[in-house]
Every structure is written in structure tokens, then in C-alpha cells.
């Protein structure tokens, strides 16, 4: 356990090194947030929907602020497999799945905290209907934070599963890109899931991609009432367990068949 904690701390420190990139990332995300909010405002002006515009604006800002929780392709592992550097990892007295899980966790947690804090402050200062609104209630805020944590565990498990795919082939850029894109579309980043056709939403909200950010945000904006929280949390945790199980067994299987490249 101690070893995993050390890995986590090392990754955390590394992430702190790139503060310049954080500022650039924040400005970019804010700009995209502004564009998206103005687009939805124009759409709402033509035809208002049941979900109020204030909630859509909050949805957009929360999605942008926690953008770092989306899947990303970690080229480091791919390089390790291609150059044979993975052999060093295999020597460590650690479970490799756990080792990579903790690394991803540190990266995503700190990456999103560093970006979310300034962005959320900025979004709060914007006028009502453009910026981020307050959560519907204090208990909803608590539930939001709880579900966001579950969402974080879910996205890390998802990414680790993607990495297990990577071990199969030497060049999996295509597969990985495709999985990441599915994430962008089905997580509500391209278009809020709340604006998808209602019949689609019934299915999409059950998929693991929706667990990451969509579920917490819906609780924040009040689309899910407090009574729905236990059910939502249960679905999230079920996915976390399933994904961790699938990822771990896949890692173990591929590890046995792994060929060390290079020499």
C-alpha cells in the first residue's frame, strides 16, 4: 500500500512541474466554454427547452473545468512497450495494474484540480445564464462531490483498460484514438448529454462514459433529484468494479504473453 502511495506522490509532483501548460490549458478551455455557452444561448432563444439555460451553462462550465478527467492517451507506456522499457516495470515488486492505476489517478486528480479551481472561479463571476450557477442545494453539492469521486475512479479504470489494449499491439494509436473519441461524444463534452434525444439518453446515461462527468453534473444542476443519488452512485460503483475487474484480468493475461522489444 505504501509503495502505491509513493508512486502517487511522485506522479503528483511531476504534474506540478508543468504550471505553464496549465495556464495555457485553462485559457483554451475558458475560450471554448464561452463559445459553447453563446451557441446554446442562441439556440435557446429560438426554442426554449425544459432544462433551463442556466443549467446548460453550468453543465458546459463543469465539463470544461474537469476536462482533464476525460480519457487521454499516455504515450509513455506505448514507448515503453516499443522500446522494451516495460521490462523495468515488470521487475518492480508491485502489481502492474495497481501501479498504472495509481499513476493515472494522480495525473487526472491533480490535472483537473489545478485547472478546475481557476476556471470555476472565473465561471462563477460571469453573469447569470452565462456563467456557472450555484448547486441546487447543499446536500446536492455533497452528492456531486461524492459522485465526482466515483466518476474519477471510473475514468481511471477505463483508461487503464485502454492501456491493456495497447499491450496487445505495438501500434494502437488508431484503437486508442477511437476509444478516446467515443468518450468525447458519449461523455457530454461535444454536446451535453441532456440535449440528446430523450430516448437515447435512457441508454447513454447507463454507459460508463456518462458515469464520469455527466452523472455528477446532473446532480449539481438538479436534473437528478436527491432521491436519485443512491441509484446513480450504485451504477457508478458497479461500473468501477466491472472495469477494474476487466482491466486487471486483461493486464494479467497480456503480461504473460508480453514480448520485450529491443536489445
Amino acid at each position, binding site marked *: 500500500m505504501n509503495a502505491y502511495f509513493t508512486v502517487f506522490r511522485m506522479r503528483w509532483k511531476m504534474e506540478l512541474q508543468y504550471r505553464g501548460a496549465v495556464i495555457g490549458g485553462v485559457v*483554451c478551455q475558458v475560450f471554448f466554454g464561452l463559445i459553447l455557452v453563446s451557441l446554446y444561448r*442562441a439556440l435557446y432563444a*429560438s426554442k426554449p427547452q425544459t432544462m433551463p439555460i442556466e443549467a446548460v451553462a453550468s453543465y458546459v462550465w463543469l465539463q470544461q473545468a474537469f476536462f482533464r478527467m476525460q480519457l487521454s492517451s499516455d504515450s509513455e507506456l506505448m514507448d515503453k512497450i516499443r522500446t522494451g522499457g516495460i521490462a523495468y516495470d515488470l521487475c518492480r515488486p508491485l502489481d502492474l495494474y495497481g501501479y498504472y492505476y495509481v499513476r493515472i489517478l494522480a495525473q487526472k486528480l491533480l490535472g483537473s484540480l489545478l485547472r478546475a479551481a481557476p476556471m470555476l472561479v472565473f465561471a462563477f463571476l460571469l453573469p447569470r445564464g452565462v456563467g456557472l450557477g450555484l448547486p441546487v442545494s447543499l446536500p446536492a453539492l455533497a452528492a456531486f462531490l461524492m459522485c465526482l469521486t466515483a466518476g474519477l475512479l471510473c475514468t481511471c479504470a477505463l483508461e487503464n483498460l485502454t492501456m491493456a489494449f495497447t499491450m496487445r499491439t505495438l*501500434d494502437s*494509436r*488508431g484503437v486508442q484514438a477511437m476509444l478516446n*473519441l467515443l468518450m468525447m*461524444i458519449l461523455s457530454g463534452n461535444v454536446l451535453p448529454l441532456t440535449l440528446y434525444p430523450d430516448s437515447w439518453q435512457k441508454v447513454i446515461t447507463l454507459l460508463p462514459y456518462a458515469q464520469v462527468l455527466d452523472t455528477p453534473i446532473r446532480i449539481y444542476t438538479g436534473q437528478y433529484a436527491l432521491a436519485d443519488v443512491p441509484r446513480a452512485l450504485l451504477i457508478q460503483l458497479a461500473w468501477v468494479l466491472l472495469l477494474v475487474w476487466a482491466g486487471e484480468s486483461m493486464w494479467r493475461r497480456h503480461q504473460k504473453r508480453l514480448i520485450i522489444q529491443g536489445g
Partner: protein
Amino acid sequence: MDTIRLYIKSMRMLMKSQLQYPASFLMQTLAQLVMEGGEMLAVILIVDRFDRLNQWMPGDLYFFFGLMSVTFYLTEVFGRGVTGAFPGMVRSGQLDTLLLRPRGVLTQTLCSAIDPRRFACIAVGTAALALGSRLSRISWTPLKGLLLAESVLFGMLLILGLFMIEAVFCIYSVKSVELVNAITYGGRSACQYPIDIYARPLRVLFTVAAPFALVMHVPAAYILDKPLYGWPAWTAFVCPLAGAGVFAVMYLVFRRAMRHYRSTGS
């Protein structure tokens, strides 16, 4: 003429080398198709839920989306040297070799890379254009066809010019400044939709600073027979020239910046 032949020859060579790994190429192309398909899906779903956007009907929205998509990704296919490869060339010192050869740096940069995977995105954009033209019942005339070609051509120059901002920053700072990409990729995202739906600051930004609206929306609105802001017809033919203007300015800035270029060495 000679330069163009050189460019075509390099493109052919690069294309061949890209196709050496067909399986990987196919997968990546497929990924691009899914990506742009997803962007288009967003437009379709928006149309499904909102029916229209101010005076713009669904067909109009597809047309605007398609025009942006085709123009942007044509630039990325054929201008990959500027839109993607340049920062790496500065960082690795590869740019030095270009300085030794008897051709312009920009020409050689353009000749150095191609990104054929993006053809998948162009296919999606073309489909959107066709769908939009059908739904909006555009009555095509040779003049309108010519205008569409003009808009795409000058749009490519505009996007190339905007990507050169990043290249110039890169020459001074070595590190690539991704922040600058907010204007290119942000412009693409914002101007997939007609400019007049946005609030004033964004409208000014994309009309004056990065004139996507002049290059694409004014002619597209003319083709759709819904002149933007009710401007007279001749503006549709003159406004796209702004794209060439941006490119010309950036070309001069780029030339100046190259004089300050200091190799990263090694």
C-alpha cells in the same frame, strides 16, 4: 511553376510513405471518420432538438458546418507542414537543413508533410455540404459554384495564416505555444455555425481579428440566398479576399521572424 511541381512531387512521395503501413493508416483514418462524424452528429442532434437557429434552417446549418469542415481539413491535409510539423522542426533543429537549400523556408515546410488521414474528415464535410444544399434547395448557378471554390480557397489561406502565428511564436520561444491554437481550433468550433448568432465580442473577434465570417459566412449566406446582415451581393465576392490579406501579413511577419531564428543546435 517550378515550386508547384516540387510541391506536387513531395506530396506524392510523402503519400507513398504514409501508405507503407496500411493497417495502421486505415485504423487512424477510421478514427478521424468517427471524430468528424461525431461533430456532425452534434449538429444533427441540435437540429433534432431545436429545429432551427434564428433564421437559419437545418439545411443552412449543415451547409455552414460542411464548408468549415472541408476548408479546415483541406488545409490540414496539404498544409500539415505548417499546421502540425513546424514546432517539432524548430525544437529538433531540423529547420537548419531547410535554410541551406535554395528554396524558401515556407515552401519547404509545406513540402515536408502531408496528413492524408484527414481525407476522412473532408468526406464528412462534403456529405454535410451536399445534404445542406439539398435540404435548403439551393439553386446552383456557375457563379455560386465559383464563389464556393473561392471561399474554400481563401479559407485555406486564412487558416494557414492563423497557424503561422503559432509558427512565429515557436521561432522565438522554441517551445510550442498551444495557447495560440485557441484561435484556430476555437475558430473552427465557433464558426461551424453562422456568425450572427454570437454575442458582439465573439462576432468582432471572428470578423476582424480572424475573419472566418468574411471568408466563409458572407459567401455561404449569399449561396443560401439569405445575405448576412442584408449586405449587397458584391460583398460576397470581395470579403473572402480578407483570407489572402491575413496570409500576406503573416507571411511578412514569418519572414521577419526567420531573421531572428537561432538554431537549437546539436
